[in-house]
């Protein structure tokens, strides 16, 4: 397939040893920005995201996995068995023609294959390499392994987040440490590229997913020191806004929701920071007198009477459709939006108008609506040039065209099962 390479990172090549989610989320950003990202996969060690649901129509095919196909758009895939010396040798040849190496194995794995930074520097002195392990490359726990879901409690989110009336740790609904580490890593790589441009010097970046997740809780770290305790679980409330939360809306009509959804499970988020926003909400609720009510006239008063405040707001929302109420509130200048489910996210007219969705033909699953690039650039537009690859889709291009292997060499490596 002829590649149309656009975007600000056109001309940058990324040798992507990463797998699961944090590393691939990093290289997804680089692919979105126009870098050529080549994922090195292996049939011996298939990426977990190819082995988890959902699969297209539940066909359990690693090339039909939605999870993989969402986070590997616009990347290439080749198959090399890195545990074989010939495989590691081949990977080094790819590193020699790359700018960036990304990996997120547990500490020590990539070194065991002879592909650590010190080795790679020999074949490409100005290479930029980032390792994104759970605990980082140094420290007494650096040999511990870490999975995405564990980062949320480990960094402290589980003791800070939660319903106010529940006295127990909570998760976040996703392995938040992974995409967060991926984004931070992508930024770090661009900083290192900037440095390389000005000095000619490459470098190694040791990223601890734990630390990059704690970086999101800098205020809570200070709270502990200032007052000897951490911030309490506020549920959906906010120290600086009221009302602030999810309010229950009118149940949906039977037959209007997809299977698996509950008619009563309809909500709207509403947040008022200023007294003007609160007054506007009162107007829309048809209760303008509440804006002057001393119980609610100031933020301080609303915080002091928040239970009653929330009861009053919900008295109104329970009669409303969440989408219609959003329209009314936004027109009045009140921040509001329904919590979208995945179906609603796939059918959002605003996202469609912004061209956020990506619908590219995939060799196995055909055209699916994927979520695209969360930014727009005016001079170097970014575009997903291709759907996620099937395993080894780019063997021919990488081994023959890019690395210049002869057909005989390719055949020999294939017979040896070094490549697939």
């Amino acid at each position, binding site marked *: 397939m002829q590649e149309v390479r656009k975007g600000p990172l056109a001309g940058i090549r990324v040798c992507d040893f990463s797998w699961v989610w944090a590393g691939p989320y990093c290289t997804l950003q680089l692919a979105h920005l126009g870098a050529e990202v080549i994922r090195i996969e292996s049939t011996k060690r298939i990426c977990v995201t190819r082995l988890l649901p*959902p699969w297209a129509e539940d066909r359990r095919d690693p090339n039909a996995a939605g999870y993989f196909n969402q986070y590997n758009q616009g990347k290439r895939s080749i198959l090399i068995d890195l545990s074989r010396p010939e495989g590691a040798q081949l990977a080094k040849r790819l590193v020699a023609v790359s700018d960036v190496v990304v990996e997120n194995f547990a500490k020590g794995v990539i070194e065991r294959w002879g592909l650590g930074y010190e080795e790679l520097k020999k074949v490409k002195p100005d290479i930029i390499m980032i390792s994104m392990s759970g605990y980082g490359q140094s420290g007494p726990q650096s040999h511990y392994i870490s999975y995405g879901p564990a980062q949320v409690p480990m960094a402290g989110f589980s003791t*800070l*987040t939660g319903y106010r009336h529940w006295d127990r740790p909570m998760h976040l*609904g996703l392995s938040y440490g992974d995409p967060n580490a991926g984004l*931070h890593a992508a930024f770090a790589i661009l*900083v290192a590229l900037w440095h390389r441009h000005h000095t000619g010097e490459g470098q190694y970046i040791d990223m601890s997913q734990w630390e990059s997740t704690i970086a999101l809780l800098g205020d809570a770290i200070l709270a502990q020191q200032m007052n000897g305790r951490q911030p309490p679980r506020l549920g959906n409330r906010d120290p600086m806004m009221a009302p602030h939360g999810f*309010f229950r809306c009118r149940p949906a009509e039977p037959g209007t929701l997809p299977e*698996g959804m509950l008619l009563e499970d309809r909500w709207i988020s509403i947040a008022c920071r200023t007294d003007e926003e609160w007054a506007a909400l009162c107007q829309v609720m048809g209760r303008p007198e509440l804006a002057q009510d001393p119980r609610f006239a100031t933020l301080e008063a609303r915080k002091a009477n928040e239970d009653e405040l929330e009861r009053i707001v919900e008295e109104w929302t329970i009669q409303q459709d969440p989408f219609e109420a959003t329209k009314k509130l936004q027109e009045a200048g009140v921040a509001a*939006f329904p919590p979208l489910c995945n179906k609603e996210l796939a059918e959002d007219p605003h996202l469609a108008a912004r061209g*956020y969705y990506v619908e590219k033909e995939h060799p196995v699953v055909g055209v699916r609506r994927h979520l695209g690039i969360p930014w727009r650039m005016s001079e170097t537009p970014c575009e997903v040039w291709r759907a996620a690859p099937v395993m080894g889709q780019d063997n021919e291009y990488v081994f023959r065209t890019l690395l210049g292997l002869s057909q005989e060499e390719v055949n020999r490596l294939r017979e040896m099962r070094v490549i697939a």
Partner: protein
Amino acid sequence: MAGPLSNLRVIECGNLVSAAYAAKLMADMGAEVIKVEEPTGDLSRLWGPFPGDEPHPEKSGLYLYLNCNKKGITLDLLKPKAQEVLRRLAAQADVLIHNYHPRQMAQRGLDYAVLSQVNPRLVMVSISPFGQNGPHSGYKGYDINVMAAGGWAWINGWPGHPNEPPLKAYGYQTEYQAGVTAALTAMAALWARLRIGKGQHVDVSGQEVVASMLEMTYTYWPYMGMVAVRWGERPIHPVDFFECRDGWIFVLCVEEHQWQNFVELLGNPEWARWDVFANRLLRAQNYDVLRPLLAEEVRKWTVEELYRAASERRIPFAPASTMGDLLRSEHLRARGFFVTISHPVAGTYEYAGAPYKFSATPWELRSPAPTLGQHNREVLGGYLGLSDEEIDSVTK
């Protein structure tokens, strides 16, 4: 030594987290960041936490954390003269990052159409809840609304509790993610500038940033026509919090060998051999039986004992850390994660440090967050040659 971005000047304007975190990431790598606050100060100065719970604009933990390494100036951007000052600052800058509403910047003559005339090499990054165009671009959105619009809130709750509302994450997390994205795209636009010779405008949508990180839940719709719900049961187990003698631990067995190692650690209880727990899918189907059995075992341990014993067997458990646990962590200490900073008004605290360690160009904390208007004279007088009188007329 000077950081890798020390050849860049960044202007930051707006409120709360997203623009401030983007600029912090760049400041920590050496960029000179000029933070522009309204005369009343960034809203994060009101947020806290505060020592002794007493609000003070120079002692808000959120502000202190997000604004280290920056110069702080105030500008009353409602005044045309102050708008002109910002345009002159932009003329000398490489990057301007802001999170004002799309309409506000245009009303003030500070949109990209104007700023690119003043400085064609300027990279301008606009962060907003819904992006710069499209039918919802005029909508307002605070963190909770963006978490809702991006599909995250819908899936954050607890299995088996359909009556609880969608749940917000602690802190302004959608703003942090929009902030990292803004810093990333600013660097990408600077990289492009090396080639094309000019700057550009970057539009970062909070809703899209959040929607882009929903793990596998989004694709259940286009791939299987299924709606993911926050109260749905987990497909594999154990993936759950359990109470130890002294706190909570997150028990996570994804692979079969991890479960086997865990069972061994528990002393091979007889029930672990029951057929109903033979694999991760069966353990999920029979979790109502498994959970109380596991709870009884886990209760015999302290968090630290079980976490260490499991980790040494390569089972990826995690403590449900408190902030105190993190501050006491030997591992984080050994890596030098926390950094001590003295602020002239707020005092001395340990701050969360670098999210990454660069071998050649270290991340560093050079200065505490600025007090309100601390660098007005240095920046407006020194860089633009404004007289004290002129400075007073635009900064108050």
